[in-house]
């Protein structure tokens, strides 16, 4: 391993992309409107694509001749570094939208900042991903507004989703040692700066959506350190099954 910290830092985001992409893929064929089924699948596809770029780079840093698939398919649950937010079950469309919005408002500013990374490879992945994420954030924010300011039922549903997800939104901007080392080393992103922009965006969109901002300040955490919810094990049982059942094959 040439740089353990960079490896960990990259996996954090790679795992966020993979797990959220996997969750969105569960919607495929089951969306509320055909156009939105396509949008959900499209975002899933973008996220899997981002995950691949990160895993490929991480595998190179690891230097053990492993591949993107080794990292995605052969790590145990405790090795995954994604935040708890992205492993939450889909719930209804409103819940999925709110989870997406709380993720997109992170990832969009994250990639924006990562484009200035001292690591050129990271900067280039960020540039590609940022474009995609701009579209994702526009889509999820539009839907938060549409549902929040739609009918009484949609308002209540998306407010409920917001209440439930509120304590999961900050883990992603709480620094781990990988985050602070990455910042210090010049290839990482300042989560403190990011959080300010992000919070402003969240507040603006929620206000336009006529939603009430929950009061709680408690934040669930653990995912970035490999301590997950009970959901992740089931996600990985499906995701990894074939690779586990038939090890060492080409697919």
């Amino acid at each position: 391993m040439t740089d353990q910290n960079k490896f960990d830092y990259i996996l954090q985001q790679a795992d966020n992309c993979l797990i959220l992409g996997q969750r969105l893929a569960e919607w495929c064929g089951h969306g509320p409107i055909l156009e939105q089924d396509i949008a959900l699948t499209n975002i899933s596809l973008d996220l899997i694509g981002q995950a691949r770029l990160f895993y490929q780079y991480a595998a190179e840093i690891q230097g053990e001749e492993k591949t993107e698939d080794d990292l995605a398919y052969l790590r145990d649950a405790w090795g995954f570094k994604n935040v708890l937010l992205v492993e939450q079950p889909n719930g209804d469309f409103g819940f999925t939208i709110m989870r997406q919005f709380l993720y997109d408002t992170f990832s969009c500013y994250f990639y924006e900042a990562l484009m200035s990374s001292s690591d050129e490879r990271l900067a280039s992945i960020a540039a590609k991903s940022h474009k995609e994420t701009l579209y994702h954030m526009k889509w999820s924010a539009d839907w938060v507004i549409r549902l929040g300011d739609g009918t009484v039922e949609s308002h209540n549903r998306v407010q409920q989703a917001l209440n439930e997800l509120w304590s999961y939104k900050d883990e992603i901007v709480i620094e781990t040692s990988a985050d602070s080392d990455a910042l210090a080393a010049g290839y990482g992103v300042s989560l403190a700066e990011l959080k300010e922009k992000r919070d402003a965006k969240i507040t603006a969109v929620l206000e336009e959506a006529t939603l009430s901002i929950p009061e709680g300040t408690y934040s669930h955490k653990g995912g970035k350190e490999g301590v997950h919810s009970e959901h992740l094990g089931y996600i990985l049982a499906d995701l990894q099954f074939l690779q586990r059942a038939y090890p060492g094959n080409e697919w």
Partner: protein
Amino acid sequence: MSTELLEQKFNEKIDQEVRIEPKDWMPEKYRKTLIRQISQHAHSEIVGMLPEANWITRAPSLRRKAAALAKVQDEAGHGLYLYSACETLGVERDDLLADLHSGKAKYSSIFNYPTLSWADMGAIGWLVDGAAIMNQVPLCRASYGPYARAMVRVCKEESFHQRQGYEIMLTLCKGSEAQKKMAQDALNRWWWPSLMMFGPTDADSKHTEQSMRWGIKRFTNDELRQKFVDVTIPQAEILGLTVPDKDLKWNEERGHYDFGEINWEEFFNVISGNGPCNKQRIDARKKAYDDGAWVREAANAYAEKKAKKKVA
């Protein structure tokens, strides 16, 4: 103009292979047949998302996962084009969906079979999309303009899917014993249902003659089925797989493969609702639609609010 004159002009256009467009006069039966055929095709695309979506979360590599997502997304896209083509004939998507959910409208019976292993993703691409292309390529020359144009886009993507599916099979067949077994098992299960995709034999096909006259069908079921067999058998040989038909052999005289009798009882059973997954598929579609009602209502309500604000 009298109806007879209109009909005569319509028939002349058909004969001269001039495209019929939405605003042109057309016989009511032509319109109805087109709605039935195009909507059935659209329904097939969106129901057809389900068996493949079933393996996205379990795709064995990230590359395959991405390809599977892209493929199913394409199918949703085809559904969109085709519903749009149908709407040019004066029906609403919601009404078409209602017919799907009630069982009044059909979709391709092939999607009532389950996807039981990863190899099914290969077999569906190779065989099911392969058969679909055989059926669909001639429709790029269909007499109804919006339909023909939709089919051009559909066919282009379908042949990409077909190659992708074949490549999955090829990878499996070059792989471990378990992978080869998986591939053979998939071929065993999908072979006959794929042949059934061309519909009943010409003798039993009730719509063929009129549809061919109208230029919305270009070859008979049996012609297309034979063509599919002739193209596919050599592909199976390259894979090193055994086609599950003991009567299959090259007929030098005909210049075609002879093949065994299709189990029409199974065919009609599946069509009439007794396929392995009929209920599961329609339930999944209905659930998606019903669970989405509040979302569609919200989107409409919001759009109305916005429109009002603009006026005010």
